[in-house]
């Protein structure tokens, strides 16, 4: 495979430099729309900071002796942020983007907090987002492994047993309709009462969220071979185990990876939710909780973005594994 590029592949039949140019154009094609969207979001964010932070901007200005309308603090408190910002446009704009504990911190403040939390702190520090990220990630990965294993096992059972097909899937669906925020404290309490604490309860909550997409995807994947492919193996007198190993399992791989990408993101959410009710001292959930206790909005937003970046990295890593594996299997993904 290595020496034969597909004849019809993009960029086949042209030189290396032309291929590089094509690649650059491809990057350009994706970069421009992505950058546009990011710029639009940032613009809206900055704009939203003005009314969101108007109360404290105007208050700070009034305390500094600048004339604001209306003059009475009681009256100002009655007003919405937008109205207040419109009444004092100059003060509201100038004070919106640098506040300590702003109701909505500006993007550059969040970015600065993110930077300080990652590059600015030693990794072992309690203030390091890398440290908190690792605490959450370890629970996420453990839960993801448990959830994926459980999901695959259930899917194999569902595909091979009519009884499981009828009984398991409805319960799996019901399990996902229960709000995780309601069930998470119960899981933690129950596990604590039998002496299990630390990473495992969080991982269990992660697994609870991540097994479901794997079950659904794998059932679909294991059932994806058509009648002809199954007939073919029947003509060889293949056993059920051989049909599974030679046909169903490889055929399900693209479906599995689609599910894993959803599953890892759900796992991360599960781990964070698992950190909330315990009053955990470490992890993104703990950072979010502490941030909201002390009104440290920048800390909340930084933890939120760190979680999103971590999820993106996990999904990206799965994408790399997927391309490598399916590429090795000769599939075009």
């Amino acid at each position: 495979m290595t020496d034969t590029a597909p004849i019809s592949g993009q960029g086949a039949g042209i030189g290396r430099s032309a291929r590089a140019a094509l690649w650059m154009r491809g990057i350009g094609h994706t970069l421009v729309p992505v950058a546009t969207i990011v710029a639009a979001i940032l613009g809206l964010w900055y704009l939203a900071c003005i009314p969101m932070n108007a109360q404290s901007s105007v208050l700070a200005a009034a305390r500094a002796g600048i004339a604001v309308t209306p003059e009475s603090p009681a009256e100002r408190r009655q007003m919405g942020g937008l109205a207040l910002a419109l009444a004092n446009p100059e003060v509201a704009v100038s004070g919106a983007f640098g506040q300590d504990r702003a109701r909505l911190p500006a993007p550059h403040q969040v970015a600065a907090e993110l930077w300080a939390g990652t590059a600015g702190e030693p990794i072992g520090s309690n203030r390091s987002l890398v440290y908190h990220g690792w605490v959450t990630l370890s629970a996420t990965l453990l839960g993801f492994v448990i959830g994926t294993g459980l999901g695959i096992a259930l899917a194999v059972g569902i595909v091979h047993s009519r009884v499981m097909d009828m009984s398991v899937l409805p319960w799996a669906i019901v399990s996902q309709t229960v709000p995780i925020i309601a069930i998470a404290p119960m899981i933690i309490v129950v596990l604590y009462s039998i002496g299990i604490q630390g990473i495992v309860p969080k991982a269990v909550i992660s697994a609870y969220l991540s097994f479901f997409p794997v079950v659904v995807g794998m059932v679909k994947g294991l059932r994806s071979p058509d009648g002809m492919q199954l007939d073919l193996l029947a003509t060889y007198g293949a056993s059920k185990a051989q049909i599974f190993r030679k046909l169903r399992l490889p055929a399900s791989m693209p479906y599995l990876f689609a599910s894993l990408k959803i599953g890892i993101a759900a796992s991360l959410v599960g781990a964070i939710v698992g950190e909330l009710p315990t009053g955990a001292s470490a992890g993104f959930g703990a950072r979010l909780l502490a941030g909201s206790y002390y009104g440290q909005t920048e800390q909340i937003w930084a933890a939120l973005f760190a979680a999103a970046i971590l999820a993106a990295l996990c999904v990206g890593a799965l994408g790399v594994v997927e391309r490598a594996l399916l590429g090795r299997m000769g599939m075009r993904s």
Partner: protein
Amino acid sequence: MSDTTSDATPEPVSGAGAGPVVSAANLELTFHTNDGPVHALKDVDLEIGQGEFVSFIGPSGCGKTTFLRCVAGLETPTGGRLSVNGMSADAARRARAYGYVFQAAGLYPWRTIDGNIRLPLEIMGFSEEEKRRRVRDTLALVDLEGFGTKYPWQLSGGMQQRASIARALSFDAGLLLMDEPFGALDEIVRDRLNEELLALWGRTGKTMLFVTHSIPEAVYLSTRIVVMSPRPGRISDVIESPLPRERPLDIRDSREFIDVAHRVREGLRAGMEAA
């Protein structure tokens, strides 16, 4: 190909017994659908001997594919008797008595051509060395040397179908069942594959059951042509071909060929009118 039978690990069942390879008597298959029973096959009597090349031709719904699937043990007849190599069709299937070629090549996209041909050998538990040898030999047999490391999507439709024939030949069963294997291919490729198939049959001496809806294809390939008609699916005529076993492509312009084709066409027409 003859040398591959000698030291095979699991001895494939050859049809070299005294009796017919396929024998059907009063064979009947009725599907029960919501719109009432569908008689896919009714009163089918047929005996096929060792080394014959029998084509099944007829309009859609005449039961030609259903009959082939019954022989393969993929469908269970609802009445009559059917034996393959002297045993029940299901026992013959489990004894790996036949190779089956489907209308679509159906190669696994995640396996190379080599890997696809190895598939039945892996399932049947041939030794590693034997697998390698058989893959090499069957690739040569269908003229695909040098394409073993390619993936199916890198091959043309005709080459894919040849690979699927190689897959069916690799474990060297004495019987080859082919269900419109060239139906999806264009005329030029089909002509070439027909010629190759005849040569292959000549070299291996296998018993062939071949479903088609092309009259020239049926006449060109077969020693016997079974004409079938629908509603209920049944045999309306069986034509012994007077053509010699050696058949160059231009035999299709000969008097005998045209006569046989004419008889097939008449049989098809009669079957349609009766239905």
